[in-house]
């Protein structure tokens, strides 16, 4: 069998998280809103109205363009894309075609062995969303709430080489969108939508074979699965001597299968022309500069810096930079702690992340501040408390907002390292449990953990477990 490589391009639509729609003052987010409750004459296409561009939508698109290393154009304008569909009340979509907001750009996906896959951006522009239609009892019902919601359409060149890379691109894009604060990027809610163009060719070939387009994939896992299945199908077809036809395929989430969509009767003929109701968009150097100064360190740059500056494994750096406030939290804790950055990483990855997941919070919402976490780690380092007490302090600080040292003092949580105190409790435990003592002495060595546990319980977790174990071993050997 020929060794094939996949050639994949992704077409994404990103819903910007502005308060209002792109050309009118209607609320942009209609999640859970009743149908047709966020509409006005502009977005529902009534005659005689004028669209006015939302400044924030432009700024968010500029920020995204800059983060994708694209060139923001000083002059761009909107066009009308004409077609008839019930979800499009005006009979055209306002989109950028001839003079888009930005050109060029790329995203470097980290690959194993410090390599990277450069994914070039072929298209990046602003446009408005259409409404929603659904079939009900032989009729079609239309909700215009989504009409005019600001979107950035961003299309990659066919630079991705596997289903896994396609999934990774989307993961990195979603991370970047949230990092920049330009989109909620929730695929299930349609904030980030993706169509995939897939073809295959013998590995190393430079030409492109006919591609198929996969639509309606609304999770990253679904993109990975759908693209993988399509690559396998195309390879089977080619091995059987068939040619690949440029189908449009639809991903069916329930059956996990790709279905061929009915081809449209006519080729797309959108008769683009300039939107006469909108003035050209001029972006001054000043405005651009003010946006670029607001551009934060990007997730992949920070990930790399965590590896070099703190000596973290890539695995840790990846998790800690998955979300911006978590990575800020990490750095602030490292700074406050002043000790081994890897130790801080362990606390975050094991304990703080679990806490965040359980509470459904982001790191910046915690009452357990970076300074608190640093103090807990220091208290353990200095032998004031043991590890288990440290872990229990996380929840206590989160619940009360008090400093760890104050809680330790009030609840008497400082570790008892006094040999005599632990020794007398050990003797008590041995005296109260003759059966276990006999079993232990008859060779059931695993009972040691149980004995240590009994001592810790009696001392309400304050004993140094290593010391307790040593004393127990000594006493039980007698």
């Amino acid at each position: 069998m020929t060794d094939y490589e996949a050639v994949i391009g992704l077409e994404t639509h990103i819903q910007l998280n502005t308060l209002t729609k792109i050309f009118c003052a209607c609320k942009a987010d209609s999640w859970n809103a009743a149908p047709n409750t966020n509409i006005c004459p502009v977005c529902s296409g009534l005659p005689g109205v004028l669209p006015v561009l939302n400044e924030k939508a432009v700024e968010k698109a500029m920020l995204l363009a800059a983060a994708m290393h694209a060139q923001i154009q000083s002059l761009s304008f909107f066009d009308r894309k004409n077609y008839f569909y019930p979800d499009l009340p005006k009979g055209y979509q306002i989109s950028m075609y001839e003079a888009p907001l930005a050109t060029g750009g790329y995203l470097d996906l980290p690959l194993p062995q410090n390599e990277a896959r450069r994914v070039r951006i072929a298209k990046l522009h602003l446009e408005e969303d259409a409404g929603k239609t659904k079939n009900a009892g032989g009729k079609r019902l239309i909700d215009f709430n989504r009409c005019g919601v600001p979107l950035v359409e961003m299309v990659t060149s066919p630079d991705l080489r596997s289903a896994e890379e396609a999934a990774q691109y989307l993961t990195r894009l979603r991370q970047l969108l949230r990092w920049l604060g330009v989109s909620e990027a929730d695929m299930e809610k349609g904030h980030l939508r993706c169509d995939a163009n897939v073809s295959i060719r013998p590995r190393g070939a430079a030409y492109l074979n006919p591609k198929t387009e996969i639509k309606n994939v609304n999770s990253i896992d679904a993109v990975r699965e759908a693209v993988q299945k399509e690559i396998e199908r195309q390879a089977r077809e080619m091995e059987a001597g068939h040619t690949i036809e440029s189908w449009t395929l639809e991903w069916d989430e329930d059956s996990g299968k790709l279905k061929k969509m009915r081809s449209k009767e006519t080729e797309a003929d959108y008769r683009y022309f300039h939107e006469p109701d909108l003035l050209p968009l001029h972006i001054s150097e000043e405005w651009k500069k003010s946006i670029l100064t607001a551009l934060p360190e990007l997730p992949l740059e920070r990930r790399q810096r965590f590896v070099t500056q703190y000596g973290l494994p890539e695995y840790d750096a990846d998790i800690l930079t998955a979300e911006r406030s978590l990575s800020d939290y990490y750095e602030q804790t490292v700074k406050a702690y002043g000790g081994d950055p890897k130790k801080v990483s362990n606390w975050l990855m094991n304990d703080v992340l679990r806490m965040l997941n359980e509470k459904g919070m982001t790191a910046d919402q915690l009452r357990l501040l970076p300074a608190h976490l640093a103090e807990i780690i220091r208290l353990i380092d200095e032998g004031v408390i043991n590890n288990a007490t440290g872990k229990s302090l996380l929840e206590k600080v989160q619940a009360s907002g008090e400093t760890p040292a104050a809680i330790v003092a009030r609840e008497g949580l400082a570790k008892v390292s006094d040999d005599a105190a632990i020794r007398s409790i050990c003797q008590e435990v041995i005296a109260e449990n003759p059966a276990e003592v006999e079993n232990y002495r008859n060779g059931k060595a695993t009972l040691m953990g149980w004995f240590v546990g009994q001592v810790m319980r009696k001392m309400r977790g304050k004993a140094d477990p290593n010391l307790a174990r040593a004393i127990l071993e000594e006493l039980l050997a007698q």
Partner: protein
Amino acid sequence: MRLTIEEVKHIAHLARLELSEDELQRFTEQLSEILDYAARLQELDTSHILPTSSVLPPRSMLRPDEVLPPLSPEEILRNAAASAQGQFKVPPVLE
């Protein structure tokens, strides 16, 4: 520039217009004449002139991102030929 009947049919379809045989003949004539007239402009050499995207000063007209009250669903649905469950109702569309 001579348009064919087929081209006129295609354009009519894009605009969702249904034309009779007679109208197709007539509009093919008329559209061809309009194109001929417009083609005269192309005799001018404009290669050294930048396209005019606007005659107004280069300044963007933008709107602050502030929400204003929407229309009520009742108001917007008053224009609908048919509605149900607070939504516009149209015949089913074949994909």
